[in-house]
């Protein structure tokens, strides 16, 4: 059995099967990207925060556009070569196409990686700080220290400074030297909590969460978690109570699993007993003549509807929590999103809670800011009819960080100068208003190049300076202001991931899907290149058809990018 029209075209439609197929598929792709683009449009138009305009580095996007257009040209060249039955030429053009795809994905990867390593903080008063957090660690004594300043810059003038978790003057700044190299395994955006008690809910605890706690406890290498009260239980009321975990039992996943098994069995037993109890009550009340016809919601109120309490003796009523303690508090470094902290307890994601003391100082975010953004503050002030400049002056960061306050002052001076320049250059309109004024972004966002300039450094100018965002290992990075944001001032903190705002969310989603299309298309074209020889010898027209269809998909991928580039990078 042969399926007709796989190679030759059908007369009345003029098309072979796979060409109809690919155009149908492209029609659905139009709708898929149509849905995503409409998502972009509506998220942007109805955004209630300043939409990040032109924030991506243009150069990698531009190079990628060239690459994709180039590959689109080579893929039609490859098809034409096949049509002319020039196998070697086909191979060369196809190879170029695939190389383009690879380079495209690599550049995309570089772009993504820069974002995933870049910290953003939105404060409660809607000031936005961007930058790199500092490495930090815990030393052998369980003291947390931040490697402050420009740790990664070789020539750091003030040297690393430490914030001791326990403010013990004796240790002071020599912590590092005294105890040898410490574990520097996190960056200063964590919740540091000293805990000596751990309450675990047997039903909801999660192996991953408890496993993380155990791992950190082992590293801390102080006393271990031990059970306070013995966990006593039984699976049914007929059995005698047994000690499942004795007092002093160590915290381990095996022990917890043991307790959970008994707990769940007992719970199932109770549920069975209660179900039986309730069924009996219903059977009894319905047996009373005349009751069968009465609706249920009346019967449940009836005085004859009674739960037989004799059954209660079969209930086990198991304890649902176990509590572990340590002699000496252990310092935990927790990811802020996985914990809900208060001064004396930290509620973990699975419902277990650590009790002890929050280390507010060590939990602060310490970073070198490479951009300070007041546009959101200004927007909110304008919505409320308040003077935006006054609102900016009142923000926590300007009030508490003199370095930032000085930078803001320099920035306002620069903007005043810019205003004058624009007035001079473009003049005023009929109403006497200046024709061109600085944009909101220029007014309220201090970029990394500006930070470097205000610090009298040398901003790196050039096409590639913005390729992957500011480089904190470079010399100019010492002009980035140091900021220390207490956790209670933080409204939202995240890397530049989809979480940061809807712009980055749609950016990652659309470009990610587009990237998947590039990979998928490259795999198909690569298959024709590397495994197409046999078909070329047997039926070159069939291969040419396939390459044409693959090429149509490839052009569509290019087409999407042609719109993505201006929409995401230039608008």
């Amino acid at each position, binding site marked *: *059995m042969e399926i*007709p*029209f796989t190679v030759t075209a*059908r007369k009345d439609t003029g*098309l*072979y*099967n*796979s060409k*109809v*197929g690919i155009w*149908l*598929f492209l*029609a*659905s792709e139009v*709708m*898929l*990207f*149509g*849905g*995503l683009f*409409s*998502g972009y449009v509506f*998220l942007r138009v*109805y*955004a*209630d*925060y300043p939409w990040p305009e032109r924030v991506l580095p243009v150069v990698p996007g531009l190079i990628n556009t060239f690459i994709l257009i180039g590959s689109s040209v080579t893929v039609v060249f490859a098809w034409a070569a096949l049509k002319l039955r020039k196998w070697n030429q086909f191979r060369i053009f196809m190879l170029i196409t695939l190389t383009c795809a690879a380079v495209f994905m690599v550049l995309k990867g570089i772009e993504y990686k820069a974002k995933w390593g870049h910290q953003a903080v939105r404060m409660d008063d809607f000031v936005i700080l961007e930058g790199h957090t500092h490495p930090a660690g815990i030393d052998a004594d369980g003291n947390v220290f931040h490697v402050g300043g420009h740790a990664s810059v070789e020539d750091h003038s003030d040297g690393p400074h430490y914030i001791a978790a326990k403010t013990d003057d004796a240790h002071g700044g020599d912590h590092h030297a005294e105890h040898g190299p410490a574990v520097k395994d996190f960056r200063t955006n964590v919740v540091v909590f000293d805990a000596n008690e751990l309450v675990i809910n047997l039903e909801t605890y*999660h192996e*991953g*969460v408890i496993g993380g706690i155990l791992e950190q406890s082992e590293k801390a290498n102080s006393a271990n978690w031990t059970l306070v009260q013995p966990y006593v239980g039984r699976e049914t009321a007929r059995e005698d109570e047994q000690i499942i975990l004795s007092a002093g039992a160590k915290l381990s996943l095996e022990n917890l699993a043991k307790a959970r098994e008994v707990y*769940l069995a007992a*719970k199932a037993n109770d*549920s*069975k007993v*209660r*179900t039986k109890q*309730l*069924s009996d009550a*219903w059977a009894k009340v319905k047996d009373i003549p005349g009751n069968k016809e009465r*609706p*249920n*919601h009346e019967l449940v109120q009836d005085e004859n509807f009674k739960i037989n309490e004799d059954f209660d003796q079969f209930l086990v009523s198991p304890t649902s929590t176990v509590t572990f303690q340590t002699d000496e508090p252990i310092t935990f470094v927790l990811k802020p*999103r*996985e914990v*809900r902290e208060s001064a004396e307890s930290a509620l973990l*994601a*699975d419902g277990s809670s650590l009790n002890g003391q929050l280390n507010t100082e060590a939990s602060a975010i310490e970073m070198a800011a490479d951009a300070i953004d007041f546009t959101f503050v200004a927007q909110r002030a304008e919505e409320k009819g308040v003077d935006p400049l006054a609102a900016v002056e009142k923000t926590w960061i300007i009030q508490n960080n003199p370095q930032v306050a000085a930078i803001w002052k320099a920035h306002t001076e620069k903007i005043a100068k810019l205003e004058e320049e624009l007035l001079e250059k473009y003049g005023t309109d009929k109403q006497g208003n200046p024709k061109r004024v600085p944009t909101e972004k220029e007014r309220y966002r201090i970029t990394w190049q500006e930070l470097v300039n205000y610090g009298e450094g040398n901003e790196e100018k050039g096409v590639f300076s913005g390729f992957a965002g500011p480089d904190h290992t470079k010399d100019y990075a010492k002009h980035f202001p140091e900021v220390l944001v207490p956790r209670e001032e933080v409204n*939202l903190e*995240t890397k530049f991931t*989809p*979480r940061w*705002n*809807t712009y980055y*969310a749609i950016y*990652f*989603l659309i470009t990610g*899907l587009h990237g998947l299309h590039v990979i998928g298309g490259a795999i198909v074209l690569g298959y024709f290149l590397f495994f197409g020889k*046999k078909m070329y010898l*047997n*039926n070159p027209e069939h291969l040419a058809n396939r390459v044409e269809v693959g090429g149509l998909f490839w052009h569509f991928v290019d087409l999407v990018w042609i719109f993505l580039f201006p929409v995401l990078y230039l608008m």
Partner: protein
Amino acid sequence: MSAETHAEHAHGHDDHHEPGFVQKYIFSVDHKTIGIQYGIVSLLFLLIGFFLMMVMRWSIAYPDQPLPGWLSMFFSDDWKAKWLQDGKVTGATYNMFGAMHGTIMVFLGVVPLGFAAFGNYVTPLQIGAPDMAFPKLNMMSFWLYFVGGAIMLASFFLPTGAAQSGWTNYSPLAGLQQAEYPNQWMTGQTWWLLAMVFLITSSLLGSVNFITTIINLRAKGLTWMRMPFFVWAMLVTAFLLLLAFPPLEAAALMQLSDRVFDSSFFMPSGLYSKTLGALEVSGGGSPLLYQHLFWFLGHPEVYVLLLPAVACVAEIIPCNTRKPLWGYRPMVWSVLVLGFLSFIVWAHHMYMTGMGPMISTFFQTTTVLISIPSVILLTSLIISLWGGSIRFSVPMLWATAFIPMFGIGGLTGLPLAFNLVGLHLHDTYYVIGHFHYVVAPGILFGLFAGVYHWYPKVTGRYMNNFLGHLHFWPSLVFINLLFFPMLVQGMAGFHRRWYNGGAGYLAEAGNTTNVFGNTVLEYMHLNELMSTAAFLLALSQVPFIINVFLAWKAGRKVENDNPWEATTLEWATPTPPGHGNFTFEPAIYRGPYEYSRPDHDEDFLPQWHEPQQPEAAEKESKSAQV
């Protein structure tokens, strides 16, 4: 694929070697096997969906009573301890079952049965194709569907349970649901989205395949206006899937990103939840955007459900009335117009979202407009019965019942089209009654008709007549007892998501602001009637299940390849059709419904019979050009 490659085989197989069991029945590329696979799996899913519904109906009718043994025997003790409270269904469990009932019935039951099973089996046969245009893609569609279904079912056994936010999965509710679980990749809500991505991809590949097949593989002489109505309906259905599903795929991916990457596509600013407090998300998203993207699929999806059923009925009625389908051309144009209009009515599901009067009027108008082609379809089917000598075979019984049942479903939808009425009836049992009338006694009856009709072609045996009647009559009675009271309750103000059938509402009846307190009390007794009808409806499906299996081995054998004396091309194949379908090169000489032609001795003239007299042939070709 060519002689040379096979010559290289040392064993010297020829082209027609027998495939092994796995290749023949599991990873088959034959459209008939794939159709049967779809049919079996989707019927199983329908059964599961039905079971979920029974648990829900128990909770509605007897909210204070523990589940009876015959319902709870399917759950383990641990599961009962976790999800039932003293044996009673809890709100969370009800939500879970409700969401999954809708999802399973729509995406895993009815669409795969109607579009994929019937479409796969019958379409290539009716157009005289040896197989689908892309057989391997066809197999892939089925397995993507299977994986999607497996993920959906498996999500019941996750620690969080399955999805609990309704089959529409509205954000931000769906975004907050199960958000407290430590690993978001392992929650039911996330698996729902993953499964949907699989199901959507499966449908997209399937529709590409269907359209290509219908466009490019039609047999010689099968012009557009000679195509059976069934094929037209499948073509339009495939286009609906092709163009309406991708925006939902986009929405599903966005929601997935909201869950696992904490983005805020559909999370507005300042969101606060009772269990989680102020949410640690950026905000700035748009919940309404999700609803638009969802209903852009959601409404065409209704026609994706409906058209295959209409298609089956439109084949069965002419065959059993022995007269041509009345108004074939208007029906074809109606189905095309219906397909087009179905893309611009979606926001009538969203009158409660604060749409203004202008846009509401627009959607109200298009919604009323779409009833015109629907009525043309239904009227044509009714008129087709007029003056026929009807053979009330079992498939015909189902097909006849489809007409009034779907009529009720359609007509009860009209009030919902109007904005102001819609505001009152929104989210009540009236809505539930309306769309269940369309889907259950409407669409499912049409599909049952199809099962009884094509079963002899698939297996070479008839289904048992007595069991067929035993299936049909109780089903007809109980399904009406189940759904009609819903319309009444809905107008009395019953909300569709009460897990306890209004008991909670009743407790507040004394409150003067509770305007529905008294009417709810008045109609509450209907709950028990409906639930009893639901359980008996389940019982009436038993004869069908027995029938399907019994007839497979022990049914009466068909006398020839065309047991119903039908005219369309699928009856020209051997029974059951072999690989490649046709034993001859099929060619078509006339329209699809040439029954009781006065110039012909028999009361049917199949499409593939070569005309004897040259005059007749001329006349045929003339009529085909019109």
